[in-house]
């Protein structure tokens, strides 16, 4: 289908060249990843009860994930990582009696850690278009960021109008995710009552944060229980009755009766403070609701407000109790950065603290002029080929913006 207007020999030649450069890139990435696993085996965190976990990994240039694996010790796992140099390594949040069992029911689920995923791409950051590179779905060529993504895309090489957008996150994106993470931690500490020591925050290795909870009590919760917690944290499903506005049979009619347990804490306090609701005066509250033109309009406003004040976490991730999850200390093939524990979220700099690949120089061919900052060095590459340190070269190759030369 591609190059339909070209003669078949040219078509084959071109395809072969493409395959060759893709293979070269994969092999360069594989080499860098292998080196990392060889030198950094200590950076990989041993999961609690390793023998009850399911492992999985993906390989460069091979579709799908190898799952249902089990390792008795980190030594066993380390050996596989150096031998295979996987593109991505995963470990289940679940504990199983038989982690290698298939189908799923054979594994005998024993429980699963509670985890939260904050993904920068779900935050609709305004800076995103300025560092999102369109990658043509047909021919793979890249072009510079377009500030207006709505505008019609047309590939300069093959004319296709379908593209995927690859984002090279900036510090603003990371700060946005950090803000969400901090909000999540606040909810977990002050509302849910978790101990600070039970909360571990990790940079995901690309553009977000994973929050792992280490609390026995939560391990047995089923997806519905977890979904209930997600609603709480994300501000979904708050009803007016909860803060004392009760519907009457009359259309849009309502009356105020404050809940017996009051508005002193949690979501009720948040909303009461925001809307200046005072438990001593039902009349005042009635006036507030009327300002929004009655029950239905106030309901819509409350829903919007709660969503806005809630944390943007991926509900799928938290409610999935059979998920394999990126392992702390392993590399993310979307960036070549590592999933890294944040000792201090405020000062954590992923472009420094999670950038652990070597400094040896690698020659690459960039598909489009690109700018990035890693390990406190700024790379502004405008020429087609460049020799840059491995950590930066790998980053660009992982993003699909460069190839091994």
């Amino acid at each position, binding site marked *: 289908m591609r190059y339909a207007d070209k003669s078949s020999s040219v078509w084959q030649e071109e395809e072969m060249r493409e395959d060759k450069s893709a293979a070269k890139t994969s092999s360069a990435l594989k080499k860098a990843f292998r080196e990392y696993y060889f030198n950094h085996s200590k950076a990989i965190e041993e999961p609690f009860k390793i023998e009850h976990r399911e492992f999985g990994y993906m390989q460069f240039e091979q579709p799908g994930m190898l799952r249902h694996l089990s390792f008795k010790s980190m030594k066993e796992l380390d050996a596989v990582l150096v031998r295979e140099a996987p593109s991505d390594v995963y470990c289940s949040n679940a504990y199983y009696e038989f982690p290698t069992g298939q*189908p799923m029911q054979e594994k005998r689920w024993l429980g699963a850690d509670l985890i939260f995923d904050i993904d920068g791409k779900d935050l609709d950051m305004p800076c995103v278009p300025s560092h999102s590179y369109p990658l043509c779905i047909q021919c793979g060529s890249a072009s510079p960021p377009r500030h207006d993504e709505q505008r019609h895309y047309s590939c300069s090489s093959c004319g296709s109008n379908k593209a995927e957008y690859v984002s090279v996150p900036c510090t603003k994106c990371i700060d946005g995710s950090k803000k969400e993470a901090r909000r999540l931690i606040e909810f977990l500490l002050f509302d849910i009552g978790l101990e600070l020591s039970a909360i571990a925050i990790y940079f995901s290795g690309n553009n977000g944060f994973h929050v792992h909870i280490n609390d026995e009590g939560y391990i047995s919760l*089923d997806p519905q*229980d977890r979904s209930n*917690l997600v609603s*709480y944290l994300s501000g*979904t499903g708050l009803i007016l009755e909860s803060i004392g506005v009760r519907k009457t049979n009359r259309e849009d009619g309502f009356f105020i009766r404050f809940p*017996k347990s009051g508005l002193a*804490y*949690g979501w009720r306090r948040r909303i009461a403070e925001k809307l200046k609701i005072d438990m001593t005066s039902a009349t005042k509250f009635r006036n507030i609701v009327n300002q929004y033109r009655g029950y239905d309009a106030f309901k819509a406003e409350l829903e919007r407000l709660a969503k806005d004040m809630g944390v943007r976490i991926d509900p*799928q991730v938290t409610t999935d109790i059979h998920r394999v999850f990126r392992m702390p200390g392993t590399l993310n093939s979307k960036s070549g950065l590592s999933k890294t524990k944040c000792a201090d979220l405020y000062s954590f700099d992923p472009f420094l603290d999670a950038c652990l690949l070597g400094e040896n120089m690698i020659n690459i061919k960039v598909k489009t002029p690109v700018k990035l900052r890693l390990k406190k060095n700024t790379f502004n590459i405008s020429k087609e080929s460049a020799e840059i340190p491995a950590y930066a070269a790998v980053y660009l190759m992982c993003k699909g913006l460069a190839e091994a030369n």
Partner: protein
Amino acid sequence: MVEELSYYQDLASIRMAGSDLAKYPFLNEAGEYLRESGFGWEELDRPDMKYIIDRAAERVEIEVDGKIYDKLERYEIEILTFVISLVIVKSIGIDQVLKKFALAEARRAEKFLTEDLRKQNENKKGSLFMKILEDLFKLRIVVSEDQRLFKVRVVDYLARASHFHEQEWKLINRLVHKGYVYLDADETVRLIRNELSVLIFEKVRAMTLPTLPQSIKSKADELRLKFLSRYERRITPTKTEYPPCIKHALEVMKKGENLPHSARVMLATFMLAIGKPLDEIVFMFENAPDFNEKITRYQVEHLAGMKGSHTKYSVPSCDKIRNENLCFATAECDTLINPVQFGRKKK
């Protein structure tokens, strides 16, 4: 028969008065009480036992109708009535009957528990029941700082209330602070209704009946006939319209816009659940920007349980759909917990 009752969980540390046993006959000591009193099967054919058997049958009938049997007599009578009602339900042998009975028994106990919990501050009695909740259901209850309410740990709350369908029970609609959910006495006891009913349900299921005295057998047969016809009726759809979440997903598809993965799963599982043919479902996705018939077919077959693990996927609940921002509820959705219920009502 008394032997049959020794299954009750051991609550050796809790000593209860006979009047408490009348309210909570499912606690082990009810069985113990009967054993101590030397009660035997043969006594049930005695004429003066007719009163008890009639009471037991009445209790079963009322409770299977979804109401609570709220009579409370002398505890000897109450305990015996309870035990015989268990025997009747067991010999009726219809699961739905047992389920309804167990649920109503749980609600009956709930009523008494609530009253007793309310007395918490009047005397020491309340703390006895707090101990029951902790021993039997591992639910620890703390009295709130101002003595007006009770507190349960967030995780204990989640594990129970997440399965209630009313919006008011969602954690977000509760007073939550520093790891605790604040509840009044009714709400606290409501949390364990399901566990109580499961306890009763499981215990009856595990019972083995000896040959029954004629007096009980004929009562049980009479009730079985009555319930049989009732549970043969089926729920049938009365409307063919789709719920708004499905309608929305179909509209998005029709426009050829991208529909998130979770919405595609919702749409496909819904169509499978209402019995749409596979081919028709596959082509509902044909306008999707990334439509590939082969892949879509595989995925729909997977959801239908024809591929992979052979697990048939159910339609996601309204709760889940809401969390994923795929819900566009209208007034008609008010009491639903799953989109497949839309437009259906009981005959």
